[in-house]
């Protein structure tokens, strides 16, 4: 006997195969949006159908595309501004950082523990920001990240100094999560450590020359950190 569940499965299966007309497709989309978040069984089935649909693609057989296609894409990718960030000195951002930092330092004085170490780090950070050759790079929060609206982020460095400071103003992650910083070096992500913001703010020191790294990533990870970045990007930047 047919059940409602089977009808839902049929619809989800056909949707995963892109085999529905526009009207049925809309019905499936509504179902995916309304029913799947609360039904783990249908969600698992739909993910399995999508996986089969993705694998079926391989059965079409491989075919080397014409060179002109790759050349066209490379040209377009090269000329697109993409998400690369300009690494110009942005004095307005530097001022914002200093203002934020002043507030951060003020509350430090009320916390005796770790204060000296933090103040030493603050001095180093200020020395970097105020250096005549310093670069301050505003960092973008990852689109659709949970902190998009609240975060303020910037990196600062003096070329050749071997140190990069990340200034971060972020909401606290869940109690069983930390933020983890990754640097992209020779095409691989290396962990630079984890942190939890102290009353929303953190200065994070990264021992790396900006000439050696091509990107920076901040993700949300379990408390002990992860060996490779999770999907939950908070900050992305390239140098």
């Amino acid at each position, binding site marked *: 006997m047919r059940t409602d569940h*089977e009808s839902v499965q*049929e619809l989800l*299966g*056909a949707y*995963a*195969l*892109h*085999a*529905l*007309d526009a009207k*049925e497709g809309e019905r499936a989309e509504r179902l995916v949006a309304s029913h799947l978040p609360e039904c783990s069984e249908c969600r698992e089935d739909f993910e*399995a*159908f*999508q*996986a*089969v*649909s*993705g*694998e*079926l*693609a*391989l*059965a*079409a*057989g*491989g*075919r*080397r*595309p*014409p060179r*002109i*296609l*790759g050349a*066209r*894409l*490379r040209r*377009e*990718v*090269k000329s*697109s501004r*993409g*998400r*690369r960030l300009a690494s110009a000195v942005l004095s307005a951002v530097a001022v914002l950082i200093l203002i934020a930092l002043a507030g951060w330092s003020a509350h430090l004085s009320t916390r005796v523990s770790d204060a000296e170490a933090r103040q030493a780090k603050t001095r180093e950070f200020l020395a970097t920001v105020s250096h005549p050759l310093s670069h301050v790079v505003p960092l973008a929060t*990852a*689109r*659709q990240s949970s902190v998009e609206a609240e975060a303020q982020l910037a990196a600062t460095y003096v070329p050749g100094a071997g140190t990069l400071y990340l200034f971060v103003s972020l909401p606290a992650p869940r109690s069983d999560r930390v933020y983890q910083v990754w640097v*992209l070096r020779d*095409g*691989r*992500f290396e962990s630079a450590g984890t942190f939890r913001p102290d009353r929303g703010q953190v200065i994070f020191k990264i021992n790396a020359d900006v000439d050696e790294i*091509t*990107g*920076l*990533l901040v993700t949300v990870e379990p408390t002990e950190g992860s060996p*490779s*970045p999770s*999907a939950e*990007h908070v900050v*992305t930047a*390239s140098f």
Partner: protein
Amino acid sequence: MDPREREDQRDDDLHHRLALGDRQAFEELYRRYSPAAFGLAYRVTGQELLAQDVVHDSFLALWKAPEAFDPARGTFRTFFLSLVHHRAVDTVRREERLRRRSLRVNPGGPEDEDVTEDVVEDAWLQDRRARVVAALGCLPREQREVLELAYFGGYTQARIAESLGIPLGTVKTRTLAALRKLQGMLKERDE
């Protein structure tokens, strides 16, 4: 780490780099997946130029909006080839409105496709392809027919029912049965 997991992890790393605007990562993903993407687009559209447009638009969409892929919801390979498939199906349906086609699955079936001679692809991807083709070959003929018409022909289930002269419900039942069987077989082969 098992070789399949290693390749999936490699894809995830490349995707992370892509999200940072790393053009080399884009280049590597193009090298890894353009033959599979082009093979799929050509199979569905049946035309070289349409297939080129589909692959071009898919890779460009990936470059411009890498956040569309969520590793928590599956592998990068599944996500990207599904994106290519969707675009190919949209293209072929748009074209069909311009000129009527006879009901057929475009040429280049899995049995007669020479995947090694003309294609520079990683061995692991060829291995995965062989497993899917073998699983597809194990389906009952009538289930395989509706699945291939939908997936490689780009036809809606309603159109398949009309053209084969069978009830829409039968097309739906056969499709779901085919998907479940494939899912089971691919899982078994992965273990």
